[in-house]
């Protein structure tokens, strides 16, 4: 359903973030994108909804070529692509409800959004989602009054209220403690399964990815160097992605059902 062909991104500074990446994601498939910082993970998912403009290459969502769209058509397709961010990217001074409803902005006109007059169906959806992520008691709290895990739940609800076909997730757990990280990952993957969503998750925490995801793509210096199941990530493979390191310790823990929470990275 998502097809990326020969994607290249070169920044004006001359840095090349992506060197011809090709990738397909099937309906309902959850993919984890791993790799060291600066490998181009973040650039890759931002190219999908064109928050970053690719230099060359093509991206297809179903039968729409995203890379060929005009601004108005691009806004329309962005409604079908939800996004979840590392630092939650909530609007701190707006309430939880307003943050969630902001996911519907692409569907309402400016004055409706200005006066906060969203259709009742949107509000029903917002209530349902807030119940689902466990925030029904925080509806009119301001976003800056919430803890990190709660904020990320708001971020998830905002992405899902768009009724997306595809979910882009950028380091959802990097700012969270290990326990909350696992809860958030579980929530995202469960919701994706319930709704049959395709998901791309950027994540630097390999054991966590292996725990929740069936397909892992390794990126190094803007090129795909691994694409396969989680248990195919041998120490050699990891060295190929991240550079040489003693991977035994972390491999040993992930082999267990409940890995030690301190053995990450």
């Amino acid at each position: 359903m998502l097809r990326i062909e020969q994607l290249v991104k070169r920044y004006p500074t001359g840095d090349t973030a992506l060197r011809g990446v090709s990738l397909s994601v099937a309906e309902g498939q959850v993919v984890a994108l791993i790799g060291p910082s600066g490998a181009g993970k973040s650039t890759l998912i931002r190219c999908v909804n064109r928050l970053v403009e690719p230099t060359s290459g093509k991206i297809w969502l179903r039968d729409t070529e995203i890379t060929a769209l005009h601004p108005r058509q691009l806004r329309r397709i962005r409604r079908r692509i939800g996004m979840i961010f590392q630092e939650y990217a909530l609007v701190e001074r707006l309430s939880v409800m307003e943050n969630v409803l902001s996911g519907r902005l692409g569907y309402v006109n400016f004055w409706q959004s200005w006066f906060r007059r969203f259709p009742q169906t949107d509000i029903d959806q917002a209530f349902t989602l807030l119940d689902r992520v466990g925030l029904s008691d925080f509806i009119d709290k301001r976003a800056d009054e919430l803890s990190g895990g709660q904020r990320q739940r708001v971020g998830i609800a905002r992405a899902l209220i768009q009724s997306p076909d595809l979910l882009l997730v950028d380091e959802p757990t990097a700012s969270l403690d290990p326990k909350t990280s696992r809860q958030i990952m579980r929530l995202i993957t469960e919701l994706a399964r319930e709704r049959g969503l395709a998901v791309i998750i950027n994540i630097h925490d390999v054991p966590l990815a292996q725990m929740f995801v069936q397909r892992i793509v390794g990126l190094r210096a803007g090129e795909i160097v691994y694409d396969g199941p989680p248990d195919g990530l041998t120490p050699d493979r990891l060295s190929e992605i991240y550079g040489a390191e003693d991977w035994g310790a972390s491999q040993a823990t992930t082999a267990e059902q409940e890995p030690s929470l301190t053995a990450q990275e």
Partner: protein
Amino acid sequence: MAEITSPSPYRRWRKPPLIKNPWLRWGVVIGALVYLALAISSVSVDSARIARGLERGGRMIAAFLQPDFVSRWDDIQIGVLESLTMTVVSTIAGVLLSVPIGLGAARNIVPTPIYLICRGIITLSRTFQEVVIAIVFVVMFGFGPLAGVCTLAFATIGFLAKLLAEDIEEIDPAPLEAIRATGAGWLKTITYAVMPQVSARLVGLSVYRFDINLRESAIVGIVGAGGIGSTLQTTFNRYDYDVAGAILIIIITLVMMTELVSAQIRKRLQ
């Protein structure tokens, strides 16, 4: 795609109002509207006068676009030079006066009577606009730039001494006690424990006040306290808009230049 079929009952949501109490909320809204209506209705608009004025405005803009620097260059030169010198002298004098008064207005380092006197001076200086102060100094010193220098120096105290006093009240008390414990007198305590903590900001604020004084030096002349202001007012009274345009361009350029320089200085201080 998965559309949410909502099992939950029909729940309404409205953005909670800023002011919770409905009486207070509507009171504030209605009060504000009534005030606005009264204020606007008390503004008399003489449309015939404005129609005539707009034509004059057109001439004014045309004149501003062809400024005349030449015909009254002598007056302009004297006025601008006076404004600049007034700015320099008054800022220096103002800073020199602000330091003792600012110290005196800091509650944590002086006895109460001195504190009250210094605060009084600051409040007096801050309350009155420069031009009002200038009227008094012109009465005292007669027409001319000396009255302007005194005005701007006095106004500088209200700005600088207040901020200095606030800074001093917020300083870390530990060095203060440490220096006092060495047996240092009041003056030594100030130079070693207080001034190092506030001096950088004092310089930054002084430079900033220089900008303000330059802008104000252009207007105190309207009540006879020197500078370009009186020349400017005369050109307006005589409808010499092309000369007025020239003066305005000089003022704007000078203000922009000093602002750029002072921004650079302040950036370097940080």
